[in-house]
């Protein structure tokens, strides 16, 4: 058992827990974009920075990665934290000027503009890696990946072409914190990652509800007959 304080409040945690997990459990509000409870932390968005004081020393750390220690003092809203967080928000804003989510969080922190040169080719993607991870670990198909490095790094299917393994489930769309990924359902067809999916109709309510490929994938994995999966969740 590890004991330390967050904003002066005494808290207990298990060894190897990250500060962010403890802080959230204790009801402290730390902003973050790349954290997801099913996928763990990568420290990519850097919004969750906090100040850690140990004796006479203090440093700014990403709370999602920093393991708890006995006797540390964690401050989630100190002047230094707010300053760093504002800079992070300015950088995110420069990368994704069109992202409503980032603009909203920035505004909440009193950041309305950025002093850095704005990108116009990144869309709303902050490279948080959640879509890539959910595709690999939650869905289990690994259709997505990062390509390139540095300023050219981006999320994509190989060669940006329709992926052989993508099942069109849209988990990447659901998990994306900024709404970067494009998906459209129209006239019984879903378009996502440049791939075209036929949508299945529910035999009871006649509503399109999921790509055929996704239902086939689930049927293959779980052994549930496809006829059963064709019935939409609302009619079950």
């Amino acid at each position: 058992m590890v004991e330390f304080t967050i904003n002066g409040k005494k808290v207990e945690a298990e060894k190897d827990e990250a500060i962010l997990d403890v802080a959230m459990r204790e009801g402290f509000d730390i902003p973050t974009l790349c954290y997801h409870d099913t996928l763990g932390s990568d420290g990519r968005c850097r919004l969750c920075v906090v100040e850690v004081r140990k004796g006479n020393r203090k440093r700014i750390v990403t709370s999602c990665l920093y393991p708890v220690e006995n006797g540390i003092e964690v401050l989630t809203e100190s002047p230094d934290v707010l300053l760093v967080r504002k800079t992070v928000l300015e950088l995110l804003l420069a990368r994704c000027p069109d992202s409503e989510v980032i603009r909203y969080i920035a505004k909440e922190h009193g950041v309305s503009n950025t002093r850095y040169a704005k990108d116009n080719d990144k869309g709303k993607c902050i490279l948080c890696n959640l879509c890539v991870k959910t595709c690999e670990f939650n869905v289990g198909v690994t259709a997505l990946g990062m390509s390139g490095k540095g300023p050219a790094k981006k999320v994509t299917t190989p060669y940006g072409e329709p992926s052989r393994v993508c099942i069109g489930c849209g988990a990447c769309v659901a998990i994306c914190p900024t709404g970067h990924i494009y998906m459209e359902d129209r006239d019984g067809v879903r378009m996502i990652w440049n791939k075209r999916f036929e949508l299945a109709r529910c035999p009871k309510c006649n509503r399109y509800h999921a790509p055929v490929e996704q239902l086939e994938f689930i049927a293959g994995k779980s052994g549930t007959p496809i006829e059963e999966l064709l019935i939409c969740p609302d009619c079950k």
Partner: protein
Amino acid sequence: MEVDTAAINTIIDKYGKDKSYLLAMFQDVQRQYRYLPKEAIQYICDRLHIPFSKGYEVATFYASLSLTPRGRHTVHVCLGTACHLRGGPNILDTFERELNIKKGETTENGLFTLESVNCLGACALAPLVRIDGQDYGKTTPGSVKKIINEYGESS
């Protein structure tokens, strides 16, 4: 593009089908084709049971791997500090003009790929050009044409 699966199988087996040698396999394939064909990446990934997207991540990450066909000869123009001061950028400009391509591109006839490097460690010879391991020291815009002609006719 069709790839020679027998040759790629030889490469894969050389590394005992061990996926930690993915990069080495890619380099071997690149040596053979002078680039990494998409089909080769897909084939290697399939045989190693690696998702194609992961193989693509590796293939796009390393500067030494190319996804587009490269020229038979790679021209490295040094732009390190010494070469830079002694006119390296001029040499690069001259190559770009003479070959009618930009840095990083390949000529239409597939003979040359033009690249810059940040130091070849032979600063006394600045400005330096290296083609397929052969060094050309103290180059001038005038000597660039001569160098190109050396490769133009043969091979």
